[in-house]
């Protein structure tokens, strides 16, 4: 079985009984969502605001439980009682606002917060904290207060706080939405590094198409449903479909798409700028 298996996931904020009592029909925030994530995979979840992607994130570590369908994390049903903390040890969630997820006023003590909650021996916590801070390149800042760090650095500390709990999977809910381009780059590099070097499964929720390009697989959501999924190349080649749902494609892909519409011959649409350049050179020469 895959690490994450979602089968026909349905979620609404009001359950059926209440709907009948109050005579309201609640919209399904998630409607028949099915997908899988393999161990060690880097999956990007794309979509507009309000399309249900954050709701998926909260399902993945059992903060929310499905109203219908099943969700298995490492073969454990999230609806099983008393398993929520087992699941949260396996799947760590990093939120959007770095300021609101740091607990302690010293970086290393904040990173230690998770392992402390797990009841690990002090010496081992020390090791984990140091290792986690080194993994996100924030070791030199371990004695700093968080409010003296930049947004990107704070977000990396938040990621370190999750790594210190040694999860198998990290879910990041728009971790770069509140950061400047430099901070976004730092965070993205960290995420890629964790996936490649530590083999941690990554589910990255974002609305920046450029961040999704590096993923192994992309899942596009719209209105609580899965619109399409596949490798970045498969997904972003469906430019018309994405445009119809007011979603973007990476800039270079759009450039190629528009050139193709003008009659320039491309075998496939580029995803990265280097790729685009070489294709253009090919066409021009």
């Amino acid at each position, binding site marked *: 079985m895959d690490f994450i298996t979602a089968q026909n996931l349905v979620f609404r904020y009001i359950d059926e009984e209440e709907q009948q009592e109050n005579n309201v029909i609640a919209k399904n925030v998630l409607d028949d969502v099915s997908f899988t994530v393999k161990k060690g995979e880097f999956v990007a979840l794309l979509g507009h605001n309000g399309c249900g992607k954050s709701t998926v994130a909260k399902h993945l570590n059992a*903060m929310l439980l499905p109203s219908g369908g099943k969700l298995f994390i490492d073969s454990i049903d999230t609806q099983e009682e008393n398993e929520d903390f087992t699941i*949260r040890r396996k799947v760590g969630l990093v939120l959007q606002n770095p300021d609101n997820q*740091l607990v*302690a006023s010293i970086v290393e003590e904040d990173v230690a917060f998770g*392992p402390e909650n797990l009841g690990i021996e002090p010496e081992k916590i*020390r090791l984990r904290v140091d290792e986690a801070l080194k993994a996100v390149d924030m070791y030199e800042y371990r004695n700093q207060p968080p*409010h003296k760090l930049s947004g990107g650095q704070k977000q990396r500390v938040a990621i370190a706080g999750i790594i210190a709990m040694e999860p198998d999977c990290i879910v990041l809910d728009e971790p770069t939405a509140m950061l400047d381009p430099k901070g976004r780059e730092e965070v993205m590099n960290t995420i890629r590094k964790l996936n490649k070097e530590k083999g941690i499964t990554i589910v990255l929720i974002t609305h920046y198409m450029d961040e999704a390009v590096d993923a192994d697989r992309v899942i596009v959501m719209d209105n609580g449903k899965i619109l399409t999924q596949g490798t970045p190349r498969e997904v972003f080649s469906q430019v018309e479909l994405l445009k119809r749902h007011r979603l973007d494609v990476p800039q270079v892909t759009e450039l190629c798409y528009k050139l193709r519409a003008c009659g320039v011959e491309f075998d496939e649409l580029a995803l990265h700028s280097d790729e685009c350049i070489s294709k253009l050179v090919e066409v021009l020469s």
Partner: protein
Amino acid sequence: MRDIAFGQYYPTKSIIHSMDPRVKLILLVAFLVLTFCTLNYAALALVVACVASIVLLSKVPVKMYFKSLKMIVVIVLITSALNLFYGTGEPLWEWGFIKITLSGINNAVFVAARIISLILISSALTFTTSPTDLTDALERLMKPLTVFHVKVHEIAMMMTIALRFVPLLLEETDKIMAAQKARGADMESGNLVQRIKALVPVLIPLFVSAFRRAYELAVAMECRCYQGGQGRTRMKILTLHKSDYICTFIVILIIVGVVLCNVLLPHTLR
């Protein structure tokens, strides 16, 4: 707004920094009591000398201490002025109903010295101890209170979070004030009542955002498996070192010194 020095941690390496926070806390309380037990100038001088040496030993810039004193300058002035004029005995100088006596001067000096040492020594504690260490120490010192069903861990956690969010909320206040000024809000003119009223459009957004932050923080804490104090371990273990015993011994010596001064020498204060 950002200028509040009192209660801020100043990270550096010094003997005072490396002391056990529990010991520091207990010694602070002992010292606070001691400053109010000085009855003559010899005892006062001893305490002031100790405070000064602690300030110097902490390796925190003296400027920081002045900043924290700046906030209470008015209080010191008012209380010593009151004490100056309420002395009893032979007046040294008289003008109308105002008379200054020797005991009045003594009282004023003692009050000023006591308040200043009080602030300096408490600032020394907060400058040299990280907030988490401090709350940690409080949690451990208050542990016996769990017998009386006092939620020690929860109180300590609340303090940690409060301290974490102080700079954040200060920053936010500045931002909201700037935003309201940009909308034409007038906060600098008018009488006291008008100024207080002008703060309402700042406080309401601040409250709303504080609640939003609190909710998000709760989610983040739950994501990190927080389940209250039970079964929780700590990364930092507090152990007493040689320096802690030496400092405690020195403070005991000072206490003995002050007591001796009080007993052997005539009292300045009655």
